[in-house]
C-alpha cells in the first residue's frame, strides 16, 4: 500500500489488530479466572488467618507471605518448570526404590492450566489480605451484638460481618483486578499467547517494534481504565444501597 513510513506502520497495526484482540481476550480470561478463584481462595485464607487457633493462623500467614513476598514471575516458572521437575524426580524415586508402577508419563501441565493456577495462587494471597482488612474494619460491636443474641461465631460472620465487609472490599478488589490484568503479561515468558505475547510475536514477524508495542500498551490502558470506571460505579451503587 502507499503512504510511506506512516502508512506502513498503520498497515501493520491494522493487520495485526485482530490477533491483538485474541491476545487481549486471553488476558481477560486469565484475569477473570484468577480473581474469581482468588476470591474464593482469599476468603478461605482470610478466615484461616483470623482463626483463634495459632497454628492455623500461622500456616495462612506463611502462605500469604510466600506469595506476596516472591515475584510472580518466579512463581510462574516454579509451576511451569519446577513442579514437573519435582514430579519426575519424585516418581522415579518411588519407581526405583519402592517398586511402584509408573503412573505419570507426561509431567508438564497444559499451559493454560499453569497460567490460571499461578495467577490464582498469587491473587489469593493478595485478596486474603484485602478480606482480612475488610473484616477487621467492621466495628467490634457488630460481632458482640451478634454473639450476645446467641449466634455462633460462624453465623455472626456469615450474616453480619462478611456482608458488611464485602461492600468495603470492592475498591481494593478492583485495584487487585487491574494489577492482575497487567501482571498476566508475565505469562508471555512461558509462551501463553496473551496480549503481550501477541505483541512480541508480531514484532518478530514485522520488525515494527515501536508501533506494535505502543498499540499493545494502549490496549492495556483501555482495559484498565474501563475497569476502574466500573469499580467507581459499583462503589457508588453500593454506598447508596447501604
Amino acid at each position: 500500500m502507499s503512504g510511506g513510513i506512516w502508512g506502513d506502520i498503520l498497515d501493520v497495526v491494522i493487520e495485526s489488530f485482530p490477533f491483538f484482540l485474541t491476545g487481549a481476550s486471553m488476558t481477560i480470561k486469565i484475569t477473570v479466572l484468577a480473581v474469581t478463584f482468588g476470591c474464593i481462595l482469599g476468603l478461605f485464607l482470610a478466615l484461616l488467618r483470623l482463626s483463634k487457633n495459632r497454628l492455623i493462623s500461622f500456616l495462612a500467614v506463611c502462605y500469604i507471605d510466600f506469595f506476596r513476598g516472591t515475584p510472580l514471575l518466579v512463581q510462574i516458572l516454579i509451576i511451569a518448570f519446577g513442579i514437573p521437575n519435582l514430579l519426575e524426580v519424585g516418581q522415579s524415586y518411588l519407581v526405583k526404590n519402592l517398586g511402584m508402577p509408573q503412573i505419570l508419563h507426561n509431567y508438564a501441565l497444559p499451559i493454560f492450566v499453569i497460567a490460571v493456577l499461578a495467577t490464582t495462587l498469587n491473587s489469593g494471597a493478595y485478596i486474603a489480605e484485602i478480606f482480612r482488612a475488610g473484616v477487621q474494619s467492621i466495628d467490634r460491636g457488630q460481632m458482640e451484638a451478634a454473639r450476645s443474641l446467641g449466634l455462633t461465631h460462624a453465623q455472626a460472620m456469615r450474616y453480619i460481618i462478611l456482608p458488611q465487609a464485602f461492600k468495603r472490599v470492592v475498591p481494593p478488589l478492583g485495584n487487585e483486578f487491574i494489577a492482575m490484568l497487567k501482571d498476566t503479561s508475565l505469562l508471555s515468558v512461558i509462551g501463553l499467547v496473551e496480549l503481550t505475547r501477541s505483541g512480541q510475536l508480531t514484532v518478530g514477524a514485522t520488525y515494527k517494534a515501536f508501533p506494535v508495542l505502543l498499540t499493545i500498551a494502549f490496549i492495556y490502558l483501555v482495559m484498565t481504565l474501563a475497569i476502574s470506571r466500573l469499580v467507581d460505579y459499583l462503589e457508588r451503587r453500593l454506598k447508596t444501597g447501604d
Partner: protein
Amino acid sequence: MIEVKNLHKRFNKLHVLKGIDCRVSAQEVVCVIGPSGSGKSTFLRCINLLEEPTEGEIYIENVKINDPKTNINNIRAEVGMVFQRFNLFPHKTALENITLAPAKVRNVSKQEAERDAHKLLQKVGLTDKANVYPDQLSGGQQQRVAIARALAMKPKVMLFDEPTSALDPEMVGEVLAVMKDLAREGMTMIVVTHEMGFAREVGDRVIFMDEGCILEEGTPEKIFGDPHNDRLKSFLSKIL
C-alpha cells in the same frame, strides 16, 4: 436467678474486677452505678461472657456459665443485651435486625418471627419504622430497636450497658420509658447507668461500684438517701 461468686477480671496486668459477689432474683431490677472505669461495664459483660472471667463463678438459673462444658450460645440466647452504642446491624432493616436471631438461633419460621417483630416494634413505639435502615433512625429510635431486637429472643434477663449514655438529652426519656415498661412487666434487669433518676424510680436495688469492687448496695432509698460509704457520698455529691 443470677449468682456471681468472687468474680475477678484482669486485662493483662490491669485488675478490673476484684472479687464481685452478687445475686439477682427473678423479676428484680438492679441498677449498677459508679464512676467511669469502676468496672461496671466489665461486670455486666462477664454475665454473658462477652468478657471471660479470670476467676470466680457465674451461675444463671443454677447453670455455671463460665464452664468449658456449657454451650455459651444457648446461655446468650437467654440473656438479652443492650449496648451503649446500639450496635444495630446497618445492612439490615429494623425488622430484619429483630427477626435475624429468632430465625437463625431458634429456627422460628419467617412469618412467626415477623409477626413477633411487629409486636415488639409496637411495644417500643416504632410501628412505622419496620422497613427503615438504622442510619435513617435517630439515636433514641435505634436504641429502642436494639431493645426490641434483644427482646425478640424472649430472654430471661436483660442486661443494659449504659443504654442512654450515647443519646442526645432529648432522646433519653423515650428509651427510659421503654425500660420502665419492661420493669413493670416483671423483666429481670441489670442496668449499668448514669441516670440516677431511673435508678431511684425503677430500681429494686442499687449497687455502687468503684475500682472493681462493690462498695455499697441497697434499696434506692438507702443508697441515695442514707449513703454510708465515703466514696459513694462523694460520688453522689458530684452528680446529684
